[in-house]
């Protein structure tokens, strides 16, 4: 019984982390049709920025903010200065995104060295909470909370603000949106900022669980792709459902069928791509 409860909580925590990682990717891909393969690197960069803040004596919240905003700014600049020039050239965009991954990864290696680094959780969330006779890390429970806050915040942004409706319009039908006078290029930059900032903040928030090390970007990117493929592109609900679905499949797959760990993880993606290529909540891409 305890086993099932702990693994379910593990699944929720992993799902929460995956959500923070992938929602940005999903938004960017949905709106701009850019497969932002640099996403894993942004996640890692945010984590490294967080480590730097903590080293200088900043608190955890500050680290998350700096990680998020810092990476968001870099992302916005990349969009403005580089990706914009490759509009209409999806292959070029993908290659540039991939190249940026290597640049960021190497820069981090140069600046921070190859040693893995820890981001300790804030003291109030350290340690294990005891409940019903077993222990579960307090921080992981908090991460579930962060994801819920994030999804509510994003929902309100997308559904209840003007800029949110502009974004949704752009995702739905770019040409019409332009025709209606929506400043599409500024929306692009804003969404890129938002998406990469979420990845950067996600890196810091994931730090106490995953730690920060070279190669983190390459481990996180396939998971983000998985969530987005499963849940559907450009959809908040899709990212949310996809993330938690993967969280459960991954955790229980590892626990019950450990020899098939990787198959368990990628099999759902294959099935979805065959049966419903737009993902669970996505709409058919034009």
């Amino acid at each position, binding site marked *: 019984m305890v086993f099932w409860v702990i693994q379910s909580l593990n699944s929720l925590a*992993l799902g929460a982390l995956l959500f923070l990682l992938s929602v940005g990717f999903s938004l960017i891909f949905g709106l701009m049709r850019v497969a932002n393969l640099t996403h894993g690197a942004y996640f890692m960069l945010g984590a490294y920025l967080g480590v730097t803040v903590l080293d200088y004596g900043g608190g955890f919240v500050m680290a998350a903010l700096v990680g998020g905003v810092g990476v968001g700014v870099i992302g916005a600049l990349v969009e403005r200065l580089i990706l914009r020039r490759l509009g209409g050239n999806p292959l070029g965009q993908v290659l540039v995104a991939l190249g940026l991954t290597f640049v960021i990864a*190497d820069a981090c290696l140069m600046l921070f060295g*190859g*040693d*893995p680094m820890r981001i300790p959780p804030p003291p109030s969330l350290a340690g294990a909470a005891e409940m019903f006779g077993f*222990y579960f890390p307090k921080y992981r429970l908090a991460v579930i909370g962060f994801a819920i806050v994030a999804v509510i915040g994003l929902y309100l942004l997308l559904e209840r603000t003007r800029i949110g409706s502009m974004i949704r319009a752009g995702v739905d039908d770019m040409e019409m949106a332009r025709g209606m006078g929506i400043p599409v290029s500024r929306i692009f930059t804003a969404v890129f900022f938002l998406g990469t900032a979420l990845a950067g903040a996600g890196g810091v928030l994931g730090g106490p669980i*995953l*730690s920060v090390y070279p190669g983190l970007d390459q*481990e996180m990117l396939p998971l983000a792709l998985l969530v987005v493929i499963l849940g559907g592109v450009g959809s908040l609900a899709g990212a949310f459902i996809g993330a938690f679905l993967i969280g459960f499949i991954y955790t229980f797959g590892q626990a019950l069928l450990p020899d098939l760990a990787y198959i368990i993880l990628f099999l759902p993606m294959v099935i979805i791509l065959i049966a419903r290529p737009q993902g669970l909540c996505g709409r058919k891409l034009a």
Partner: protein
Amino acid sequence: MAIKYFMSTLAAGATAVLLGAVTTTAAFAEEERPVRLGFLTVNSGALAAGGQQMQDGLDFCLDERDHTMAGRKIELTVGDTAGQPETTLTRTRELVQRNNVDVIIGPLAAFEALAINDYIIKAEVPIISPSAGAEDMTQRKPNPWFVRAVGTSAQSAHALGEYAANELGYKRIAMISDDFAFGHELSAGFQRVFEENGGEVVQKLWPPLNVADYGSYIASIDRSVDAVFAGFAGANGMRFLSQYQSYGLTGRVPVLGHMTTVDEGILHRMGAEAEGVISSGWYSAGIDTEENRAHVDAFYKRFGYDPGYYVNGAYTACMFLENALEAVNGNIEDKTGFMAALRNVHLTSSPRGEIRIDELGNPIMPIYIREVQQKDGRLKNVVLKKYDDVSQFWTYDKEWFLDQLVYSR
């Protein structure tokens, strides 16, 4: 006509003498040329931290000797393998064919060493491995040009199996190790000796090498065991122990580790979650001999961290080179003679203790049981017990051991 004949003979003779003089000078010049040392390390990707430590260890050793061994200068060329087998092969070829190296120290990973194994045999280049622990390279598929400066994957795990059963009195243990050759080999070695001494391994978990999160594995661990054996490499030991603590298991179920689980290279980034972990290894910065204390102090002063698996591997490989070069009076050009000297290396003292090489190219050396403790303001692997003259075969008969299948899952 006769004069012409005479002049041409004189010219021929003069040329011959000149040529002879030039070649002899060249031959003499050969003796003075530096020994060309190739170094294969990893400077990018996930293994970069270990690669940097290897580089530091080698630089430290060469600087101590002023880049001179047996009266000859050592010229170092570094090749970055990026942790990829294909790149390792390319770099090795470059070192051998373009740089004409006399000897190679490297590579870092076992899969890299296996990738260049055939080439080394064909090119007949002496190679000293400062890190790769793949068992079969000195067991069932030996390479005559290969010498290892570190132990096999299971060499120190054997000792821990014995210590856990006999001195710690553990009866039931759960094992969790990285799911790749190194993890399989070290775990199998631990299990064999542990069970022969009355213990029982009740559970074996194999998280993939690059798994993001150990949460589901930790939750699956059978809580009723006496201890958990954690066989991790790279940074995984750090992540595992920190997550182990956040699940409330630290202090509840003791952890036994492999040398790489709490290696000095990652230990300095860990905290209370690592305290009390007992591991085994052929080196520890905490070895309490005068030689090692001086070595650690000098290294720490220059680099700011304690030497561990990678640093010591490269440092010892460098010591092997020196020992072999001195045995052949610097004549590295005689490859067969040099290789024989390399296979007969005997260091009576080193930071690790006394080291000999067995007939298959693997070292026979002391193994230390260590415990992570707070000392001098930082975490150290303090030595609890020393096993002398441990070979890759533990106490087993060599023929019997080689007859068994190689260690696996």
